[in-house]
């Protein structure tokens, strides 16, 4: 089952989605983004079944939004459109309940929901092996561990059921905590034995456990320095007026860190035999993302960027809506379009 879009396309799309969500509190835009994400989700769901881990996304999202709404309404008492009042003496929840607080909570819930769907879409679209291949070479041993773990989870679950059945026939009943012992122990010991066998097989196939030539002191030093740089950048950015500088420092530090990781990765002699090709679908999605970037940041005069900054307080009113930004945001739904095309 090959992925519809290139790995990097999905990553960029994910990043764009997260940026779009964090940039605005405007209800219209947020709803638009959410709709796009949900559409993408429905298209991916059809195209790719990922295991039997039922998780009703919609219900969870609604739950989160409602909870956030209620929480905010109960706790915060600002705003001018009051619809209910509880006695002020009650701790925390006493005082006026305002519509503004409700809507604000709803907005927060939508933001969370959006982040959630964005990541879920990404997870659904990328098969696990692709995710593992994303892991940088510097982390090769850890990547192998993850591969092994992912490969062995189905085996472990199956073994668990076999053990459960076998023990049931000894008369074992699940009454107390202790009764789980005959289920858990064979699983653990079996796993350890299996690990020994696996490492033997890996060794026999030439899996190298020897350290590569050249130390990695320099790499680690570089990483620490970049980390300190990033920290410094953050501290700077919290001072009013120095935000841009701080942000720049953080960005630079992060890039330096990633460069150090890449440099460390060069030490590991490995190649990747899979070659993903960039296709038209990728181009379409990436173009859409560029358009979004332009709409949000490029100083065009005809785009009313203030509509992004919407506040519920002090008085509830309808948010503004700029059609250019709205159209650009629709670009987040492009993957659905591409997948839909491919299916036909």
């Amino acid at each position, binding site marked *: *089952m090959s992925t519809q879009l290139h790995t990097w396309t999905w990553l960029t799309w994910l990043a764009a989605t997260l940026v779009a969500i964090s940039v605005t509190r405007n209800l219209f835009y947020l709803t638009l983004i959410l709709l796009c994400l949900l559409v993408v989700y429905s298209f991916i769901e059809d195209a790719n079944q990922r295991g039997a881990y039922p998780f009703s996304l919609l219900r969870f999202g609604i739950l989160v939004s409602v909870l956030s709404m209620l929480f905010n309404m109960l706790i915060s008492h600002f705003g001018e459109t009051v619809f209910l009042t509880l006695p002020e003496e009650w701790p925390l929840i006493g005082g006026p309940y305002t519509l503004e607080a409700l809507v604000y909570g709803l907005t927060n819930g939508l933001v969370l929901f959006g982040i959630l769907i964005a990541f879920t879409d990404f997870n659904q679209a990328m098969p696990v092996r692709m995710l593992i291949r994303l892991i940088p070479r510097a982390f090769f041993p850890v990547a*192998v561990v993850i591969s092994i773990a992912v490969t062995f989870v189905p085996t472990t679950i199956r073994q668990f059921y076999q053990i459960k059945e*076998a023990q049931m*026939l*000894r008369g074992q009943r699940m009454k107390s905590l202790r009764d789980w012992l005959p289920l858990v122990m064979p699983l653990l010991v079996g796993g350890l034995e299996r690990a020994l066998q696996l490492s*033997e097989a890996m060794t*026999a196939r*030439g899996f190298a456990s020897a350290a590569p030539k050249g130390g990695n002191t320099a790499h680690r030093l570089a990483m620490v320095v970049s980390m300190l740089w990033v920290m410094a950048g953050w501290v700077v950015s919290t001072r009013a007026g120095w935000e841009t500088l701080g942000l720049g420092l953080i960005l630079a530090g992060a890039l330096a860190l990633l460069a150090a990781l890449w440099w460390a990765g060069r030490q590991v*002699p490995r*190649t990747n035999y899979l070659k993903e090709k960039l296709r038209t679908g990728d181009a379409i999605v990436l173009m859409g993302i560029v358009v979004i970037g332009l709409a949000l940041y490029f100083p065009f005069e005809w785009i009313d960027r203030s509509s992004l900054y919407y506040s519920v307080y002090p008085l509830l009113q309808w948010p503004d809506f700029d059609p250019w930004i709205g159209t650009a945001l629709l670009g987040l739904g492009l993957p659905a379009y591409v997948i839909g095309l491919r299916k036909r």
Partner: protein
Amino acid sequence: MISFQDVTFTYPGASYPALQSINLEIPAGSFVLVMGLSGSGKSTLLRCMNGLVPHFSGGTLSGTIRVAEMDPVDASPQVMSRKIGFVFQDPEAQFVLDRVEDEVAFALENLALPPAEIRTRLDATLGLLGLTALRERRLDTLSGGERQRVALAAVMALNPSLLILDEPTSQLDPEAAETVLQTLVRLNRDLGLTILLAEHRLERVLPFVDRLIYLDSEPGRMLVGDPRQVLAEVDLVSPVVALGKYLGWQPLPLTVQEALPFAQLAQLPESSDVLISDIQATLPEPVLRIVDLHVFYGPKPILKGVNLSAQGGEVLALMGPNGAGKTTLLRSLIGLMKPEVGEILLLGESIAGKNTADLARLVGYLPQDPNALLFADRVLDELLYTLHSRAHQPHGHRQNSSADTDTSNAEKAAVMLAQMGMADLAEAYPRDLSVGQRQRVALAAIMVAQPRLLLLDEPTRGLDAAAKQRLADLLQTWRDDGHAIILVTHDVELVARLADRVAILEDGVISAQGKPVEVLAASPVFMPQVLQLFPDAGCLTPQQLINRLRST
């Protein structure tokens, strides 16, 4: 290609060496079979060749080894892996990745070969082993036989000159084993690959073997040479070879096909009375009765009207092709699958509505992997656990004072262990024991509760000939005590030795049922070797035939 000079090896903490003064020469291009009981050092010998012993296992090694012009002790297994491929026994514990082509390409990626070359080698290797259709499949959707072929592919991708396999088919059913072995023969013939194979199931492979190595349980005694010569001196052999030795057929036939000309010439007095074991099953109420059982798996019918019964004091063998429903039948018997239609009666009472733990009073079940049962620190504790669990049954047991119960449990456990010849293992850690011993511990833990009906699911996987014999003896003892035993197995020779009745399950129904001599004679797939050679003699095992010959 391979040369051992005076090699002696002792595992760390062992009191006597696993290998003693081994001398061996194996030329390139041979197909070598390594035989021997469990614990005789087969695995150790094979692992010496690619350096897993001593690098992976520890211990002290003396002597000189040269394999493919390298010294495995000096080089490491990683270096040896360029020239030597090693395939292990368990198809579930060899893979790092979850897809066929990723796994096969893994070793190549580790060598940092250019991607184009990896892809070429990948295609070639998958084609060589007939796996091209399966290349995008997830490994956990494959059968055991297919998985072993993938393991083969993973090592073949490195273009080794020597292939070593440690019991690769012992966890597989006969058809899958056949495929794997045929693949090996083809690799040896077509590519001139040197192959070293350790196996218990010999029959299929013997005609193609150039050289046989037999390791005796006493370290130091090793026989090497032409298969016919070595087998002439070894005791635990297949029925064909046993008959050939007794009847003096020369050159010693290795397979049924080779033996047929001799058998046709042999003069065997006709006999109409059929020699069978003389257990008279008097007909009380059968322990188990299955009436018109229909079981569905989702929408699909698996069992389509099974009628079967099992008496006390009888061993019933249940055989049949894969997918026929044997596992489903067993699972229905223990209450894990509910029938759509039909009834299962245990001692006259229907089991519908009872849960599995209740059934444990009457039914003992040995799963395919006995390791699933073993969790305690001592063998004795395993037996005590079963007894203790049963004491808490809601039905029927008198509640003695707990001190009394404990003492009586301890006694029962001790008696059981003594009966099975395992009294000296009472304090041992179960998971440190050999495969055969572990199975016996699991059996003890089940039988200590004295269930009327014992179910065994493929108990012969991974057992050597001696362990199988011990299992057969044990089952016969219990049968004589009055237990009813149902044995699900592919192992025809075991059935021939042991079963009182045979039932064949095919396509969801019992297609044949009756005395072994009748049922097995009528089924081409399940015919024991003795019957293949002498269809009219009415004997199932070489011992029976020899007895008949002696009596006339």
